[in-house]
């Protein structure tokens, strides 16, 4: 099944695929960040693949000079009972990627959480606010350069 999915993607998006690998049975495919919405649309609407459920979207801080941030999408096909993982790399200076809320409305909170934790911006998101941290918080807690103990005085205490 993994091979079939990969073949289909290679035929449909020969230029977008940047790599793929399989580890412990999990298929993950890396795409150019510009094409992610098109790819997601195809994966959802293709009658054989039918990845209709968005399981998870999250960011990863690889802490390297090129393509520091990664956005990882986990999709699931209810009919085929199959997972797939999509990945895109983003640069540190301008971590922006197109939002997939137009494909799955459930992506909304996943993308908000990723924005909150990594500062990755999702272009075209309907309501890109912080998910957990206060709205006026300046830092992005899950970045590797954010200290584990937090930054002192970054969250003001409520006045008595």
């Amino acid at each position, binding site marked *: 099944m993994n091979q079939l999915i990969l073949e289909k993607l290679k035929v449909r998006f020969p230029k977008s695929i940047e790599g793929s690998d399989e580890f412990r049975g999990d298929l993950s495919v890396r795409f150019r960040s510009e094409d992610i919405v098109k790819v997601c649309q195809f994966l959802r609407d293709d009658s054989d693949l039918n990845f209709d459920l968005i399981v998870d979207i999250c960011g990863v801080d690889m802490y390297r000079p090129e393509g520091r941030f990664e956005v990882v999408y986990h999709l699931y096909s209810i009919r085929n009972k199959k997972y797939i*993982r999509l990945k895109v790399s983003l640069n540190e200076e301008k971590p922006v990627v197109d939002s997939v809320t137009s494909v799955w409305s459930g992506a909304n909170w996943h993308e908000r959480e990723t924005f909150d934790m990594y500062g990755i911006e999702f272009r075209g998101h309907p309501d890109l606010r912080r998910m957990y941290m206060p709205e006026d918080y300046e830092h992005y807690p899950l970045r590797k350069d954010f200290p584990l103990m937090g930054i002192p005085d970054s969250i003001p205490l409520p006045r008595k």
Partner: protein
Amino acid sequence: MSARTAEEPRKSQILVALEDQDTTVSLDPLENEMVLNMGPQHPATHGVLRLLVRLDGETVTGCVPELGYLHRGYEKIAENCTYHEFIPHTDRLDYLSPLSNNVAYALAVEKLAGIEVPKRAQYVRVLCCEMARIASHLVAVGTMGMDVGALTALLWMFREREKLVDIFDVLCGARFTTSYTRIGGLMQDWTSQCTEMLKQFLTEFNDDLAEVEKLLYTNKIFIDRCENVGCISRDDAIALGMTGPILRAAGVPRDLRRDCPYLVYPDLDFEVITFTESDVLARFYVRMEEMKQSAVILRQAVEKLPEGPINVNDTKRVLPKKERTYTRMEELIHDFMLINLGIDPPVGEIYQGIESSRGEFGFYIVSDGTGQPWRMKIRSPSMINLSALPTMVKGGMVSDIVAIIGSIDPVMGEADK
């Protein structure tokens, strides 16, 4: 709504009406939309969930859930401790079913490290998951009943839950913070006393559940409060990424225990419960029926429970037994190395999800080959299920919100991580 210029005459009209106590006045004194703040300290929001609700009279026209009041940064903590050290933290995620969180985490790390635990440990883990599911659904069903005014059900459900919690106590020495699984096995073995207690529980369980059914299934007030409330269409439920009882109540038979089998679920017979009404009542029925199915699984698993070891014999990756750690040098060294430096799985990334009582509970782990995960993402079902709340409450009444939150059954420890 009248124009702003007509405000003065309106005011006097209202005042006259109020003085006369005339209730037939056509102009509503509160003729504007009101924003109501529910929570975060509200007993019906099941924890620290905050809702901003826009109301037109008593009809909900909009709702914005605000999360983050219990955000403890577990994903950050996970990046800074070894794989073994994170096990106690998993208890604190979904605190109504800690045992199944332990199992989910252990399965994820084992998939990453390529460990397969012995059959007996797998059966015990199935027992843990199903007991946790019953314990969690009991609270879900009970509190949902309480939210719509049926307090008796809650008390009866907690009486049942107490028996399960006692089994957890015997099994792992703690009622809630179980931390029962270890990477490559379990903390300690399932004992015959646990078997006895579980069998005793199972003989009484169906009758006790039937009592609650008798109380609620024919209760007009309960049915009226729940029927056709908080509906969400099948397509919306899929598009919003719902999982667990909410998705099954919308008619999608997705259950990871059957669809992407883990542990020994393929050897056990059970049904995937689905309803098609997709309202609060359907979710209630799904949970009630799932508890019965869990009891069926428990009966089979406790019968089939094989003898044998509970831990993988792999001293470099699996913790030694506590009594040996305290008496032998080699085991002490291994214990020290495993806790402090970790198990060093290969470089790679995996996602492992299980069907927890609330839906798909999963871990995505990126390993850089060291003892600590480079990145661990917790896929929490409560958070995603809550994102459907605005869709469900729209057009309903204020009092329906409480019933709908009860039917989503969020645990904020897990939703906020």
